[in-house]
C-alpha cells in the first residue's frame, strides 16, 4: 500500500518539472507584447499606501505588486482591465482605458456576507450556506489571550460550543469540548480536523495559534458528510497558506505574568479555632460536653482564636506544644509565575508557488512557584501551493509540533488542605511532617518529575486535476495524509524525606520505592481519499456534485519500562536505576475506517438553495455483519432578501431562512476489538520467594450484535443583516435524537459481569443558539462593535432499559432525565430548637429511615435541616429524593466588545454560564467533612446559630452523621456555578505608518492584555465557579489570572 503511494508521488514530481518549464516560457512571451508603461498607486480608505498589493492583468498570468510607497509600474497596451487585490480588502477591477497613471483606493473587506466558509471537504460562500455552521478567524479566537492553547481560547467564542476546564494549569487544563450539549451517555466529543486530517484534542491544544486561518464548526446536518465520527459535531481548522504578493515576515511575541486569582478557602489558626469552638459547642447538645479537634483542650482552641497559642503538630507522639509557628502553606507553594511566546511567520509567493512558513516557541506554567509545572512548546509548519500547469494544482503541508508537559510527580494540589498546625519547615529549615506523608513542598521539590512529550509530524498532499476538456466543470482530486504521533512519558519517583520538629527523620521513601518509568507510545495514522467534482451552471441553475472515497488506518504501539531503586535524585534515565528490578510491557492495536462520500448542491438564482450529502462507513471495530451503515443529510434555504418583494421593502440587506435534517454516527465507547472475546493475563505469587505464576481470565462479555449510534439532527435557522449591514444576526433551533445509543444494559449482578455495549438506548437533545453583532463608526476614526452570543441545550435520556435505583446526588444516567441528573432531599428550613427536633423525629423515623438515630450522639440538633417526607410514609428514605436539575452547563454566553480609534484598538471578551448545578464533594465541601484536614473558612459566620436562625448554611458540627444529613444531598446544598468572567481585555496601539515606513516596517503594534481579570459568580462556598472537581487533596487547583505584554511586527 505504502509502496504504491511512494511511486505515485515520484510520478507527480516528474511531471511538475516539465510543466513548470512550460509555464515559465509562456510568462515570458506575454511580456513581449507590452507597449507603454502604466504607473499607479494603491491606497486604503484613509489614503495610506498599501504595500504589497497585487496587480494583475485580467485574463493573463501577468502582474506586479506595489512597493513601500504603494506604487507600481506595469507595461500596458492601454486597454487591459487590472485586478487589484490585497488581504483584508475587497478586490477591485479597473480599466486602464489608455491612461498612463491611475490611483486606486481599496475598501476594507466587509466579509460578513461574502465570507468563505470552510465546510466538509470544501468551502462555501456564507450566502449560500444552508447548514448551521459558525466560523471564526484564528485572530478572533485568540485575541489577546495569554493561553497557548487554542481549545481553551474558544471558551464562549462559538455559540453552542461549550468548553469546560477543571484547572488553569497549562498542559493539565482538563478541557472538555462539547457541541450542542450531550447526545449520548457515551462521551461523544466533536470531531476535529486540521486541514482535513483528523486530529485529537491534544493536537488542537498543541497547534501554534498564529497558524490558524479559520476555525469552522459544523453543528447540524452539515456534519453528516463526516458520517460515523460526527455525532459530536465537527470542528474544522484551516491553517494559513501563502498569499500572492511580496514576502512578508511577521513576528508576534508576548510575555505574561500569572497571578493568583482565587485563593483557596482554608482557615487560618484563628478561623480554625472559631470553627472548632462553634462545632464543639453545638455538638455538646448531643454529647453532653464539648469535644475539640483531636482531643485539644479548650484552652488550646481559645489560644488559636486569640492568637496567643499556635502550635505545630507536636514533636513527640501526638501531643502539642505551645507557641510554635503556624503555617501559611498556601503562600509557601503558590505565587506569581510567568510565561512567554514567540512566533515568526514568513509568507508570500507568486501565482505559481505560494508558501507560508512559521516557527514558534511558547512556554507557560502554573502558579506552583516552587517547581516548574507547565509546558514548553515548539512548532513548525510549511504550507505550499503549486500551480503545476493549467489543469493541475497541488498543495503540500508539513508541520511538526513538540510539546512537553512537565509536572511534579508527587504533591500537586495536595497538602494545602492540611491544618495550619503543619508548617512546611521545622526550626532547622527541614521539611516538617510529624505524621503521615503530607508535606507538599517535600513532595513537590523532591518527589520526582513527570515529563510528557508529545510530537506530531503531519504531512499532507492534495492534487487536483481539471478534467474540463472531457466535460466542462469536471475535476478530480486526491489527497494523502500521514501523521506520526509519538508520546514519551518519563516519570521519576524520587526519595522524599521529612523530619520531625527536632530534626529526626519521620518519613523517608525507601530506596526500593523510588523508581523511574518510561512509556513510549506511537501512533501511525494514514489517510487517503479520492474525489470527483463537477461544478457547472446552466443559466440560473448552479450545480455542484462531489463523490469520493476515503480510507483511514491507525496503528498504535506502546512500550513501557520501569526500574526501581534510583541511584541518583537528579538523573531520570532508566539506566540510572537498578537493572535487576526492571519490568516492562508492550501493547499494540490497529483500526481502520473506509468511507464513501457524496454531496450535491443546487441553487437557483442564488435564492433557492439545496444541499444533499451522504456517506457510507465501514469500521474495523464492528463485526462484519453490522459494520456498514449509511448516513445522509438534506438541507435547504431561501434567500428572501434576494426576492423582489423583499428588496422593495428595503429592510433587509440579507435575510435567509434555512433548515435541514441529517444523520451522524458514533461508536465511542467501543474498543478496537470488542466483538472478539479476549483472554486477559497477569501474574500472582505462590510459594515463599515471591516467585510469579501466570494468571488468566476471560476479559469480559462480548457481543457481535452492535452497530453505530445514529443521531438525527434537525435544525432550523435564520440569518439576517439589517441597518446597512451594521447589525447582523443568526438564530438556530435544533432537535437531536440518538436512537441507537450504545449502552451497557444493567442486569442482575448474578450475571457476574458487565453486559457488553448494545444499541439499546435513546437520547434526545433540544436547544437553540443565537448570535448578534453590531458594528458602526462614530465620526471618521472611531469604530466599534458589540457581539453577543447565547446558547442552551437540554438533554433527555429517553430510553435506558434496566432502570437502576436513583441515588442521592448526581446520577450519571436516569431514564427520562438529562445526563448527570441531581436528586436531592427537599428541605423546609431548620429545626430551630430542641422542641422542634423532638416534634420532628416521630414524623420521619419509621423503619428503614435514614435519619440519624435519635438515641445516639448522632441525633439531630437545633440548626439541622428539616428534610421533607415527600411521599408521606412517615420516614425519610431514598424514596423521598426529588429531581432538582442537571449538572450540565446551561445558558452559555459570550460578549465581545471592540473599538478602535486611530492607532488604538480595544477589545474585551466576557464569557460565562447562566446555570450549572453542582453538589460539592470532598474534604472542603463543608465544615469538618474530614477531621484531619484544614477547614473551609467560608462557612465561618454563615452557619446556623440560635442568634442567626436564617443562616445560609446549617449548624456547624464535627459529627459525621449530622454533617451528612445537613451538607450532602439537600436542595439547599446545591451550588449554582453560574458566572460571568472577563476572559480578556486587550488594549493595543499600532504605530502610524508614517513613522514605521521609515524603518521599512509594514506594521508595528504593541498591546497589553489581561486574562481572567474579574469574575462575578453565584458560588458561595469559596471556590472558583469553574472548579467542579471534588475539593479533596490532590484534586484542587488555584485558578490563575494573567497580564500579557506583547508586540506584533510585520515587515
Amino acid at each position, binding site marked *: 500500500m505504502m509502496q504504491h503511494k511512494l511511486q505515485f508521488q515520484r510520478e507527480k514530481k516528474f511531471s511538475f518539472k516539465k510543466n513548470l518549464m512550460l509555464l515559465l516560457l509562456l510568462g515570458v512571451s506575454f511580456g513581449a507584447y507590452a507597449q507603454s508603461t502604466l504607473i499607479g498607486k494603491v491606497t486604503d480608505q484613509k489614503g495610506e499606501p498599501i504595500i504589497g498589493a497585487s496587480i494583475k492583468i485580467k485574463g493573463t498570468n501577468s502582474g506586479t505588486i506595489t512597493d513601500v510607497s504603494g506604487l507600481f509600474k506595469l507595461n500596458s497596451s492601454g486597454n487591459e482591465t487590472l485586478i487589484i487585490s490585497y488581504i483584508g480588502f475587497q478586490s477591485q477591477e479597473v480599466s486602464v482605458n489608455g491612461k498612463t497613471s491611475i490611483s486606486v483606493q481599496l475598501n476594507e473587506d466587509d466579509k460578513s456576507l461574502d465570507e468563505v466558509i470552510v465546510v466538509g471537504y470544501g468551502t462555501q460562500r456564507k450566502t449560500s450556506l444552508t447548514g448551521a455552521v459558525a466560523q471564526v478567524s484564528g485572530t478572533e479566537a485568540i485575541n489577546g489571550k495569554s493561553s497557548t492553547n487554542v481549545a481553551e481560547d474558544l471558551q464562549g467564542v462559538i455559540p453552542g460550543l461549550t468548553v469546560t476546564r477543571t484547572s488553569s494549569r497549562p498542559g493539565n487544563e482538563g478541557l472538555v469540548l462539547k457541541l450542542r450539549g450531550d447526545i449520548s451517555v457515551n462521551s461523544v466529543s466533536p470531531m476535529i480536523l486540521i486541514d482535513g486530517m483528523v486530529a485529537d484534542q491534544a493536537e488542537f491544544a498543541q497547534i501554534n495559534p498564529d497558524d490558524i486561518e479559520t476555525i469552522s464548526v459544523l453543528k447540524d446536518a452539515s456534519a453528516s458528510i463526516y458520517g460515523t465520527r460526527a455525532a459530536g459535531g465537527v470542528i474544522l481548522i484551516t491553517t494559513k497558506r501563502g498569499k500572492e504578493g511580496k514576502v512578508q515576515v511577521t513576528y508576534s511575541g508576548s510575555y505574561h505574568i500569572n497571578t493568583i486569582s482565587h485563593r483557596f478557602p482554608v482557615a487560618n489558626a484563628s478561623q480554625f479555632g472559631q470553627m472548632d469552638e462553634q462545632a464543639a459547642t453545638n455538638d455538646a447538645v448531643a454529647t453532653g460536653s464539648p469535644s475539640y479537634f483531636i482531643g485539644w483542650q479548650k484552652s488550646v482552641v481559645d489560644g488559636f482564636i486569640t492568637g496567643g497559642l499556635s502550635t505545630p503538630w507536636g514533636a513527640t507522639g501526638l501531643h502539642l506544644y505551645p507557641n510554635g509557628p503556624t503555617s501559611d502553606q498556601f503562600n509557601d507553594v503558590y505565587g506569581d509565575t510567568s510565561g512567554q511566546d514567540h512566533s515568526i511567520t514568513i509568507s508570500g509567493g507568486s501565482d505559481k508557488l505560494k508558501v507560508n512558513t512559521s516557527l514558534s516557541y511558547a512556554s507557560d506554567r502554573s502558579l506552583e512557584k516552587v517547581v516548574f509545572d507547565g509546558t514548553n512548546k515548539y512548532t513548525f509548519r510549511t504550507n505550499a501551493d503549486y500551480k503545476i500547469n493549467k489543469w493541475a494544482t497541488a498543495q503540500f503541508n508539513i508541520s511538526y509540533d513538540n510539546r512537553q508537559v512537565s509536572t511534579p510527580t508527587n504533591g500537586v494540589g495536595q497538602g494545602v488542605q492540611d491544618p495550619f498546625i503543619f508548617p512546611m519547615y521545622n526550626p532547622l529549615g527541614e521539611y516538617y511532617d510529624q505524621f503521615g506523608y503530607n508535606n507538599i513542598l517535600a513532595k513537590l521539590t523532591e518527589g520526582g518529575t513527570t515529563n510528557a512529550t508529545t510530537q506530531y509530524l503531519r504531512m499532507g498532499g492534495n492534487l487536483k486535476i481539471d478534467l474540463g476538456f472531457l466535460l466542462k466543470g469536471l475535476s478530480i482530486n486526491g489527497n494523502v495524509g500521514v501523521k506520526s504521533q509519538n508520546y514519551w512519558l518519563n516519570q521519576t519517583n524520587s526519595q522524599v524525606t521529612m523530619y520531625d520538629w527536632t530534626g*529526626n527523620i519521620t518519613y523517608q521513601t525507601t530506596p526500593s520505592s523510588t523508581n523511574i518509568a518510561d512509556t513510549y507510545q506511537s501512533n501511525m495514522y494514514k489517510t487517503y481519499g479520492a474525489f470527483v467534482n463537477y461544478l457547472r451552471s446552466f443559466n440560473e441553475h448552479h450545480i455542484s456534485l462531489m463523490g469520493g472515497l476515503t*480510507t483511514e488506518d491507525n496503528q498504535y504501539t506502546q512500550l513501557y519500562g520501569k526500574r526501581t531503586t534510583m541511584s541518583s535524585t537528579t538523573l531520570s534515565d532508566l539506566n540510572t536505576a537498578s537493572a535487576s528490578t526492571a519490568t516492562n510491557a508492550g501493547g499494540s492495536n490497529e483500526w481502520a475506517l473506509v468511507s464513501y462520500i457524496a454531496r450535491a448542491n443546487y441553487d437557483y438564482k442564488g435564492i433557492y438553495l439545496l444541499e444533499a450529502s451522504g456517506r457510507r462507513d465501514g469500521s474495523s471495530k464492528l463485526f462484519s455483519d453490522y459494520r456498514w451503515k449509511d448516513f445522509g443529510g438534506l438541507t435547504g434555504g431561501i434567500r428572501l432578501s434576494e426576492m423582489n418583494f423583499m428588496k422593495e421593502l428595503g429592510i433587509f440587506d440579507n435575510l435567509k431562512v434555512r433548515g435541514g435534517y441529517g444523520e451522524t454516527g458514533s461508536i465511542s465507547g467501543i474498543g478496537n476489538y470488542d466483538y*472478539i472475546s479476549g*483472554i486477559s493475563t497477569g501474574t500472582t505469587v*505462590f510459594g515463599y520467594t515471591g516467585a510469579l505464576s501466570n494468571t488468566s481470565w476471560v476479559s469480559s462479555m462480548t457481543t457481535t450484535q452492535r452497530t453505530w449510534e445514529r443521531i438525527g439532527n434537525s435544525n432550523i435557522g435564520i440569518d439576517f443583516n439589517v441597518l446597512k449591514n451594521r447589525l447582523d444576526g443568526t438564530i438556530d433551533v435544533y432537535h437531536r435524537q440518538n436512537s441507537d445509543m450504545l449502552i451497557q444494559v444493567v442486569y442482575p449482578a448474578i450475571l457476574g459481569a458487565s453486559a457488553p455495549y448494545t444499541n439499546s438506548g435513546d437520547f434526545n437533545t433540544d436547544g437553540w443558539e443565537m448570535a448578534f453583532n453590531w458594528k458602526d463608526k462614530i465620526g471618521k476614526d472611531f469604530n466599534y462593535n458589540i457581539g453577543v452570543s447565547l446558547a442552551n441545550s437540554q438533554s433527555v435520556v429517553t430510553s435506558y432499559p434496566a432502570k437502576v435505583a436513583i441515588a442521592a446526588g448526581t446520577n450519571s444516567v436516569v431514564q427520562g432525565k438529562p445526563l448527570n441528573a441531581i436528586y436531592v432531599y427537599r428541605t423546609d428550613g431548620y429545626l430551630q430548637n430542641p422542641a422542634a427536633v423532638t416534634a420532628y423525629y416521630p414524623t420521619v423515623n419509621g423503619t428503614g429511615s435514614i435519619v440519624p438515630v435519635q438515641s445516639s450522639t448522632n441525633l439531630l440538633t437545633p440548626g439541622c435541616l428539616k428534610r421533607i417526607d415527600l411521599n408521606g410514609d412517615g420516614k425519610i428514605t431514598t424514596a423521598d429524593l426529588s429531581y432538582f436539575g442537571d449538572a450540565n452547563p446551561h445558558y452559555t454566553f459570550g460578549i465581545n466588545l471592540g473599538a478602535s480609534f486611530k492607532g488604538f484598538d480595544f477589545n474585551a471578551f466576557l464569557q460565562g454560564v447562566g446555570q450549572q448545578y453542582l453538589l460539592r464533594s470532598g474534604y472542603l465541601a463543608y465544615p469538618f467533612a474530614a477531621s484531619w484536614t484544614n477547614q473551609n473558612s467560608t462557612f465561618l459566620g454563615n452557619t446556623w446559630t440560635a442568634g442567626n436562625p436564617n443562616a445560609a448554611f446549617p449548624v456547624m458540627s464535627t459529627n459525621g452523621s449530622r454533617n451528612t444529613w445537613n451538607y450532602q444531598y439537600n436542595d439547599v446544598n446545591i451550588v449554582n456555578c453560574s458566572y460571568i468572567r472577563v476572559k480578556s481585555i486587550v488594549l493595543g496601539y499600532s504605530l502610524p505608518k508614517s513613522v514605521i515606513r521609515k524603518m521599512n516596517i509594514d506594521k508595528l503594534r504593541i498591546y497589553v492584555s489581561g486574562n481572567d481579570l474579574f469574575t462575578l459568580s453565584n458560588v458561595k462556598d469559596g471556590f472558583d465557579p469553574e472548579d467542579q472537581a471534588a475539593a479533596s487533596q490532590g484534586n484542587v487547583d488555584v485558578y490563575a489570572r494573567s497580564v500579557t505584554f506583547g508586540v506584533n511586527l510585520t515587515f
Partner: protein
Amino acid sequence: MNMKKNKIFILTGLFLAVIFAGCSDILNQTPTDTLSESVYFKSLSDFQAAANNLHTNVYGWLGNTTYPINFDYGSDINPQTGDMGSGNNVSGTTDTYWTQTYGWLRSVNILLEKASLYKGTDNISVPVGQAYFFRAWHHFFLLKRFGGVPIVTKPLDVTQTQLPRNSRYEVMAQITADLDSAISRLQNYTVKTSNNDGHVTLEAAWALKARVCLFEGTWEKYVGTTTDGDGTANGAGSKGYSATQYTDYLTMAQTMARKVIDSGNFALWHGVEDASTITATAPNNYLHTSYFYLFNLEDAKSNPAGLTKASNTESIFRSVYDVSNRPGNTNLTHTAPAGPTRKLMDMFLCTDGLPVQDSPLFQGYSTMASEFANRDYRLTSTVKLPFARYWGYGTSTNGGGANYTMDIKSITTASQVSQLTYVPILQGGNGYNGRKFATENPARQDYQESADYYQIRLAEVYLIYAEATCELNSGAISDDDLNYSINKVRARAGVAPLTNALVAAHSDLTLIGEIRRERALELFGEGHRITDLCRWGIAQQELDYASAGAYVQYNGVNTEYVTAMNPFSNVLVYNPINYPTGFISTVETPCSTYSGIATLKPGAVITEKASNRHFALKNYLQPLPTDEIHLDPLMKQNPNW
C-alpha cells in the same frame, strides 16, 4: 494535446489505482497484543493459569473495603465501629460483596465449562478441583452474609439472569457437593506435593468442608429456620430443611477436622517461643510472642528468631503476598485494626486456665500493667503493655523498625525512648492499643506489609474439632478429645489445659462456653466473631451490650490511668471531657450471656452506649442490595429489611 491528455489519463488512473488498492481487507483486524478466547483453554498450563487467577479472587489484604469483614469491626470484642455488628446499617442499593462474589463465581464457572468441553489429553483434575473448591468458597461466603442466594453453576448469559433465591439448605447441598468434587480431584494434590505454596490442596478442601459443616450444623441447631422467611413474600424460604440434618453436618465437621489433624502435615507455629528459638540480642524481650509474629511473618527481618514464611506449617490455605510482587496494600501497622474491648481484655484467661473473676492469679486493675500479669500469652501478643517499649516500623515511623541486634531496653537517647515507649491515651478511646497484624519490619512502610493472609489455619481446625464434638455430645467432651484438639492451642498460649475437672470446679463455666471463648481469643480479628455469634443464636444479646474500656476507678479508687502523666509531654493520660457518657457506675453490668465472662464493674469508661446498638434477629442476615431486587422480581428481600 494528445500527449497531455494521455498524461492526465495516466495520472488519473494511477491515482484511482492507489486508492482502491488499499481498501480490500483493511477492515478485518484482530487483536495484536492479547489472546482470544477461541484459541485458549487448550492445555494444562492454560487451565492452571486460569485456576491461579481464582486464587486471587478471595478477600485478603485487599484494602479498606474489607476491614469490617476481616477484623471483626463492630463486634463485641473490637471497639472499631462497624454498622454490620452494631445493627445500625440500612439496606443499600448495591453491595460490593454481592457483586464481587458473583463476578468471581463467573470466572470459576467459565473454567469448569471449558473443562467440560476439553478434548485434550492433559490431566487437568487439579485446576478443576481447585475451581470446585472456589465455587464452594464463594457460595459459602454468600450463605454467611445473605442466607439463601441464587446458586450459579454456569456462566450465565444476559437472558438467564432472573433467578429466584435458593434456600440456604439448597445452597449448602451445592457447597458440600462441590467440595466433594474438589476432594475427589485433589486426592493426589496435598501440601506435600504442592510444597505448600499457597495453592488449594486436598487438606484445604477438607478444612473448608469442616468449617462449612460446623457453621451450618450449629446454625441449624440454634437458629433453625427463624431467619429464612417464607420465600414468597420475603427471604429465601426453607426448602430442603430437615430438622435432623444438623447432626450430619456436625459429624462431617468432626470427621473432616480429624482428617486434617491426622494428616500430620501441619503444626502450630512456635517460632518465637523461648530463648532457644530466639536469635535476637536480649531474647527475654520476646519470650512467648509466637502468636504476635505469626501474623506479620515475612522475611528474616520480620521477627527476632530470623524466621521466614517457609517456617510456617500452621497455614492450611493462605493467600500469598510479597512486598515486591504482591504487596498487601493495606495500612495495617499504622491503623492497628485489631484492638480489644473491655470484654475481650477480660476474656483472656489467667495461666491457671481460669477467667479473671475466678482466678487467684489475677492482679486487678489498680495499675495499668496489673491486669496483664499471669495471663494468656496472647494478651501481650495482641495488646500493648503500657509503658513497655515497642519497635516502630519502616526506617523511621515511631522510632523506626526493629533492630534485633540491640536490646530495646538499653536505648537511652531521649527522643528514641519517647518514640519507642508505648504511652496509653484515654482521650475518647478505650485506652488499649492492638498489636495483632502490625509489623516492626524496618523495611516496611505503610501499605507495604506483606505477610501471607491466613484463610484457614490449623488452630481453627483444632477448635472446629472440639466444638463439633462438644455440640454432638450435648455439651460434653472427653479430656482425651480436648487434649487432641483445643489444648494444643491453649498450650501455645501458656494456659492450663481445659479439662472436665476444671469446669466442674467452677459453676460459672461450661465446656462449650470455654470452647467458644477459645475461638474468640485465638481467632480475634480474623473475621469470624459476628458470624460465630449468629450461628450460636446469641448475637442479638452479645452484640447489644455497652462497650467499655480501661478502668479509671477500681473498687471505688482511682486507678493509675487517672493519675498517670505522659512523661514525654507532661499531659495527663486521661481526659474525662472526652467521655460524655461517663463510665460504668454503681452496679456491675453484664456484657455476655455466658456467666464465664467477667462483668463490667463500676469505673470502666464507656465507649459505646448500649442504646446505640441495635443488633436484632434480622441482622443475622444482611440485606440484599435493593438494585438486585428491582432488577430481578423473583428475588425477595431478607425478612424485616
